[in-house]
């Protein structure tokens, strides 16, 4: 199956979900996403960072600079309560959408 390109809105949800699993930095999010989706979903990594910053401006995530092992500086993101709520809402929306699509496509 070809790698599906992600729309901006869905990217946001996926980021939120991955952050719900635990705070992470940009690269970590990207590789986690690839890993969990069995490499089916990939993001042009370039659109990941603008998305992260956007989420931060919206208040769904919080970030801070840390020094990782190897003394590298990295920005780590965590989910905020608002982000949690948003994740829940968007997940529900998507489930509903998927169910409707399925119903239509399976209709005889």
């Amino acid at each position, binding site marked *: 199956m070809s790698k599906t390109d992600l729309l901006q809105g869905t990217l946001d949800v996926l980021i939120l979900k991955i952050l719900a699993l635990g705070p992470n930095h940009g690269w970590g999010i990207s590789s986690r996403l690839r890993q969990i989706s069995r490499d089916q979903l990939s993001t042009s990594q*370039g*659109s990941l960072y603008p998305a992260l*910053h956007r989420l931060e401006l919206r*208040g769904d995530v919080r970030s801070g600079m840390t020094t990782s092992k190897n003394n590298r*500086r990295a*920005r780590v993101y965590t989910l905020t309560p608002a982000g949690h709520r948003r994740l829940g809402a968007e997940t529900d929306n998507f489930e509903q959408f998927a169910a409707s699509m399925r119903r239509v496509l399976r209709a005889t």
Partner: protein
Amino acid sequence: MLQRIIAYIGGLIRRRTVEAEADDELRFHVEMETEANRARGLSMEEARRVALRDLGGLTQTREAVRQVRTLWTDAAWQDLRSSLRMLRRSPAFSVVAVLVLALGIGVNTALFGIVNAVFFRPLPVHAPEELVYLYQIQANGRPFVTSFRDVEFFDGHYEKAFSGVTAHWGGSVIFSADGESDRTWGEFVTASYFDVVGVKPILGRTFRPEEDDVATTGLAVVISHDLWTRRFKNDPAILGKEVRLDDKVFAVVGVMGPQFVGLSDPFRPSRFWVVWAQRDPEYRYFGTGVIGRLRPGVSLDHARAVVAVQSAQQQRYWAERWHYADQDWKPRPYVVLPASDIRMPFEPDASVVPARLVSAVTIVVAIVLLIAAANIAGILAGRGVARTNEVAVRLALGAGASRVIRQLLTESVVLSVAGGLIGLFVAWIVVALYQAYTPSRFVVDVPFDVRIVLFTAAVCVGAGLLVGLAPALQALKVNVTTALGGGSDTGATGRVRRRLRHGILIPQVALSMVLLVVAGVHVRALMHIESADLGYRVKDLVVLNVGHWDPGPSLKENNQAARNERAARARTFYRAVFDRIRKVPGADGVAITSSLPLSSSSSPNTFISQDAFLAGSTDASTAWEAAISTGYFQTMGMSPKRGRDFDDRDVLTSPRVAIISEAFAKRLWPAGNAIGKLLASVAPGKTNQKIEWREVVGVVNETNPILHDVGDRPVVYTPLGQSWEPYGLNIVAWSRSGHATLIRQLQDAVAGADSFAEVRSVRSMTQIAGEFLYPRRTAASLLVACGLVGLLLASIGLYGVISYSVVQRLREIGIRSTLGADRRNIIALVLREAATVAAMGAVPGVGLSLVALRLTSNVIGPVPTFDVVTFLAVPPLTMAVILLASYIPARRAARMDPMAVLRGL
């Protein structure tokens, strides 16, 4: 939300850190990804390359992140700074563009301000929409002013509709203060005037209700701001100062603000206000204009209804009470008109020309602005094309199209704001010039109010956006490769570009030609008028209007004895003045006349010759009458054609004589000599009138009216020595050595003639002529100014566009040079384009000029439709200027080293 704002502000403050952190973040990503790639087996360089590729490019991502984090204002600020940098880098272009805009916007704003001040300013009073004028419809159906009796009635009975009623009338007095006298226009009002009109003084007070009472002793006058500034130089001790209005002494009790010039017609601002009762105890017999203020919430229609009902009742009551109702009597209705609709309150009927004048002015000014805008568009388009490379690279680097447009637009808005600011300065200068060169009778304060500033701002920004948009779009449409590859004027893109250039230039050329032709025609017509021989001397001639305050019987005593006494006083006064001024040493010629040749206020009389009368004909001819002293013709530089001048022989007791103008003589006695013939003035249609025959003793040359459209002016001169009651005396005098001493000597002479004598105004004939010519002179100067500005703009535009066209065709020129074209050929190549544009602009230009002439002659004054000289002179002149403007870039093109050009591409 708050969080976002804090984040933004935080970002602004810690900008460096934020940028550094973003860089770090991305660097971290790349490093991690590189490591992962290495773990998969790629070499160090491969790993890094793949990492960067997968990220999508470091620069792009950085840019994308920055875009997300950037505030709208942040981007705008960046655009602003880069625009300023860009404009600083090409100073010639920036300066030219700003100047062009400044000229266009400045002239426009100034004219808008002046026209607004004279005609359209809403009354600077409280709630102007509540003010109304009340008029009475006369027997002929036209509204006219009413009488004071009505005012008192209104005041008492209309509280339902009006919160206040007041009255006003305009008039002029001799305003004397600090030894200087001048005829000044102002309003006579009731004490409630300022309260009803709704305006407060800036100094002192307005009138108190008790001042309406005739018996008050302290006479009070309120003066206008303009008078306070001009006459009293903003004297802070103005309150309480004593001035004389005609023969009574008043104290200045208040000064109005600069905005309020009374409720009078636009060309006669009120400079003082006086309570009518204090000016003339008999005021209540006079007619007056009535002003009312509607009660808040009362509609105009309601007020009209109230007025209609009540006034009809009241008039019927009066009619019955005073028994003057006859069969045909009907109550005359009143009409209530909103003050904002009436520009001339004392002549509600008068068709005020302003509408046409304003539209003419607007059109002219709009043309100038159009030229300026086209100019800027051209320049910017040229620059847009020249910067195609830069734009192409930007686009290739990933800047969004909208971002690039925003940047280009910011540049043009910056230009137009700068142009607008300087334009305001230009406008200020223009207004100052207007006020300096306008005869004081007409000048109006032009306040720089908010509306003007807003208008300018709107024009600025609008021009900027409009004008910047086209080149911005054009720049974006350009294909990157062709842009980078340079271009020539041939081929599809070349044709498009050429058409764009021509589309911008040709209207400019045509429009400026229109302006110049119209200006030229009007100026020549004006010069013709000004240099026309009027038949009398104008230069170096002074005119003093004198009178005396008759302490004798007042005007109201109408019996014969009183009239005789007044007439005798007038005769004595005249004799005394005339004898004294004749002895004045400084005058090369001095005389007295009852009317001046330029004066249009007197109306003509009808005359009939005795021959015609005896023959039973009722054919009478009209002529103006002037009573003159001896020496008049000599002073006025006129030439007696036949017979003699008046002299001391002609007194009251000697036979009546007259001197007539040439054309009139021919009209009455076409056959031959008028000398010795008799004529008399008759009132047409009246039978049994006493006819006083005069003998023609001299014939003098014609005096021509200053504006040819008035027709000729036959005159019958009678000697002042034979006048029963000389009045309205004007001393005319001239001196080879100039005015100053002459005027003083004359004033002394008059003062010594009679203890009640007074010099009412001192003017020179040139001043008086100037007032007549004022509208035409203003129009002509305006047209010339606009024409020159238009031509200047068109030349600048052409210079700019031709320069850039040269840049565009660099390669073509280089190749031609190499192929053997010499400098002259190159210059000819460039000039050919300029000449084509000029020629293509000239044709519609001339056509439009004819139309424009027709339109403007309706408004300003008649002009010959086909003034050959102007039409022959202007097109070649325009083309010459245009060719000159394009010669400079042409020479520059020819001087270029072809090898450098070709190599550079």
